[in-house]
């Protein structure tokens, strides 16, 4: 294997040592001298790097490890265009890794991240963790005894938090909304949490996201947001195209994100055919994702009756994308409408999966204490960071104040909510900065 290393710093030198068939490009004269001394003239090329260096057809892998992240990405793109099969990019800033992955370059590494991992690993044998594992209402563990969970020798369930008190774990039968208190050694806490929580299939707010792609811009907005959401919640993506020429790019994006996807081309995606296009016989469309493009405003897609028809025909949620992902902050308003608590729970499910912070406005005059308890239960159950207040004045205005503050990434609303008029919902969709998830008669209710 012939490896070309761009940048002969410490990392480059280490790689040169381990691979005798590797060649390095270096621009700095002083370092060039050292490299030549260490590896001989024929393994060192004088830089700076230029595209011609990729002309050598024998190169199988290129490792780009200069000190400049932008430069590294630029070289990686050039290598990708030349069709070099193996490309590894070093970046100092770990936040740039997703960007590189979106370009189709899988191996992007940050040496600091590796170092931190190694340091953590060296500390692990001495660590002891006390963690709280929630039992969700549809957990397969409900009805089992604690002993049946069987965590092994390095973890033990010491107690169960139930209805606000701690019970001894021995002999207890697991109930929904229990929180298992687990002590573990050797850094097993995350793994344990996964083994218990990951089995919650219905923790997914929806199984599938049907993404409507009408024009090129939808790739960057709707598809990108749908893929983000699907990847995290473990849903599939059904891509419905109006323009077949967009399919290859969309497929590339879906492949890179690692999400299971299906492609459907429906020719012209007329606005009136949206619900029909989303539905395939015998297949639950899940959540319909579309963008809030000005084109829709012109064609009045988000008019009350059109949205109503879509929600009625699809019987599922509609996600209006604004490219606000990742969703750090989610807003929801809970009121007296019977569908309101399940929609709030959906917001908590999303918050749980996406690690988002929740802002919940409570507006209730029938049973305000009950509603407060409900939100507290959800906070406890899903362990999501949540700021919640009871609305004193007008719920619509408080809702608008939150929306227009610009701090929100996703707003989860109940279509039937009496607190939000459909005109205001229309403005929230068209003019509000956050993405909007609209629900009507939510199913799969998991209330504790």
């Amino acid at each position, binding site marked *: 294997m012939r490896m070309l290393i761009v940048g002969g710093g410490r990392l480059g030198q280490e790689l040169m040592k381990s691979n005798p068939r590797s060649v390095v490009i270096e621009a700095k004269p002083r370092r060039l001298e050292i490299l030549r001394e260490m590896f001989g003239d024929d393994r060192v090329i004088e830089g700076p790097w230029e595209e011609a260096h990729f002309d050598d057809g024998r190169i199988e892998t290129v490792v780009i490890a200069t000190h400049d992240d932008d430069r590294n990405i630029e070289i990686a793109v050039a290598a990708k265009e030349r069709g070099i099969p193996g490309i590894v990019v070093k970046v100092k800033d770990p936040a740039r890794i997703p960007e590189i992955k979106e370009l189709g370059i899988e191996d992007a590494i940050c040496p600091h991240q590796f170092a931190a991992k190694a340091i953590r690993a060296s500390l692990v044998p001495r660590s002891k963790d006390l963690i709280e594992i929630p039992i969700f209402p549809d957990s397969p563990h409900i009805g089992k005894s604690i002993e049946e969970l069987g965590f092994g020798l390095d973890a033990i369930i010491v107690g169960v938090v139930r209805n606000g008190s701690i019970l001894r774990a021995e002999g207890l039968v697991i109930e929904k909304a229990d929180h298992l208190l687990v002590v573990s050694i050797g850094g097993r806490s995350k793994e344990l949490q996964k083994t218990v929580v990951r089995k919650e299939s219905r923790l997914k707010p929806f199984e599938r996201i049907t993404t409507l792609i009408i024009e090129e811009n939808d790739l960057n907005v709707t598809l990108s947001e749908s893929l983000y959401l699907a990847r995290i919640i473990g849903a599939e993506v059904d891509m419905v195209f109006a323009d077949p020429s967009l399919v290859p790019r969309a497929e590339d994006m879906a492949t890179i994100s690692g999400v299971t996807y299906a492609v459907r081309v429906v020719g012209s995606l007329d606005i009136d055919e949206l619900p029909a296009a989303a539905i395939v016989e015998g297949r639950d469309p899940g959540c319909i994702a579309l963008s809030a493009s000005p084109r829709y405003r012109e064609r009045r897609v988000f008019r009350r009756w059109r949205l109503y028809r879509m929600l009625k025909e699809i019987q599922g949620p509609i996600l209006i994308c604004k490219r606000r992902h990742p969703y750090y902050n989610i807003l929801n308003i809970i*009121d007296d409408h*019977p569908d309101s608590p399940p929609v709030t729970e959906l917001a908590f499910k999303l918050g749980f999966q996406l690690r988002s912070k929740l802002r919940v406005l409570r*507006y209730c*005059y*029938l049973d305000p204490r009950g509603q407060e308890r409900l939100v507290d239960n959800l906070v406890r159950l899903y362990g999501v960071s949540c700021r919640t207040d009871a609305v*004193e*004045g*007008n*719920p*619509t*205005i*408080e809702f*608008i*104040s939150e929306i*227009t503050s610009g701090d929100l990434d996703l707003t989860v609303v109940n279509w*039937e909510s*009496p*607190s*939000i*008029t*459909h*005109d*205001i919902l229309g*403005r929230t969709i068209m*003019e509000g900065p956050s993405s909007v998830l609209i629900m009507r008669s939510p199913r799969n209710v998991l209330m504790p």
Partner: protein
Amino acid sequence: MINEYFILLIIVILAFFMPLLLQRTNIPAVVGEIVAGMMVGFIFFIIYQLTGETFLGEYPSVDFLAHIGFIFLMFLSGLELDFVRIESQGRKKQLRGVIVFVMTLLIAFPLVTLLNNLTGGGMETLFVTIVLATTALAVVLTVVREMALNRSPWGQELIVNAVIADVAAMILLTIYAIGVDVTGSDDILFPLLAVSMFIAILVFFIVIYRLGNWAMWYFPGTLRRFFRSDDPHELGVRASLMIIFTFVAISSVIDSKALTVLGAFLAGAAISMLFRDSLLLGQKLNGIGYGFLIPVFFITIGINFQFADVLNMATLILLPGLVIITAVAKIVPFLLLSSGCARRDLTQGVLMTGGLTLMIAGAEIGKDLGVLDASSYGLLILLAVVLAVITPTLFRYLFTRFRLAEQEGCL
């Protein structure tokens, strides 16, 4: 003659004590206020009969307050409209409400005509029919809330039917009143002016709604003050008053009471439509209305009640006749459009019988238009009072008797 301030004192004393006296009964406070006013009026009537001396004179300030009270009453009736409920009931239920209302009119009209012919009375039959078709939305809301029905689909249906009957009756009354004004006027331009004012009010309603939506979106911080309990300037109340009196001022251009009523009603409806669930603002406005102005209106009606015009045989025969007609016209449509549970339909029809506020508003409009003479006016007031006492009590009785709460599929 009694001083104006003493009259006001009598009114506020009655307004204070009547709800306390009625708290153990199921009679609406409004009825108590009218009856209390009637008792005061009756005492003065007896004194007049015995001594020939009149203690009551003209009280323009009290009349003005009563008129503002009437405007406030209509405004608060509009504010009670729950648009979310109407929307969420779907078109079928809305259409059913409209059909029930139309059937009520169709049943009531021939019966009222027949009664009028039999008694040889001089009632304006079409007008009385519209007044009979009204529903006491406030009574329906109170009963539904008290009996915890507001969460059941049936409770929602009751409210929506009452709202539709109220709004439709209000519009018909206004159209009728404009019709009478137009035909009775010699001015060639008057019809044009009347129709323009009617349209102007509807346009203003839409403008207020649009403007309000726009302001809510772009200035939520400012509008937030409208709904705060600690706003020293009570901006919400001031804004509401501004909207009410804009509507009222537009409608007063042609000096039509019906249009004023519609204007005040639409002002309430516009605010209810814009600011859903504004409990705090609603409470403040209720405080002004039901705390002072509205009792003044109802008690004044009672005090001014002309016993001499009503206490005669013909009128006293008409009263039970109208009670029966109203009941038949309200109950039969529900039975005809049966939902599969006749007992439920009968119970619903009973609650819908009688329109306290709007019936009185109708009587006021009729008197103002000149289509109702003093005895017909008094008769309608009595009818409103009698129905408001009977119907909620009968509804509660039937609801328990038929065990509707326990019957599956009925609620």
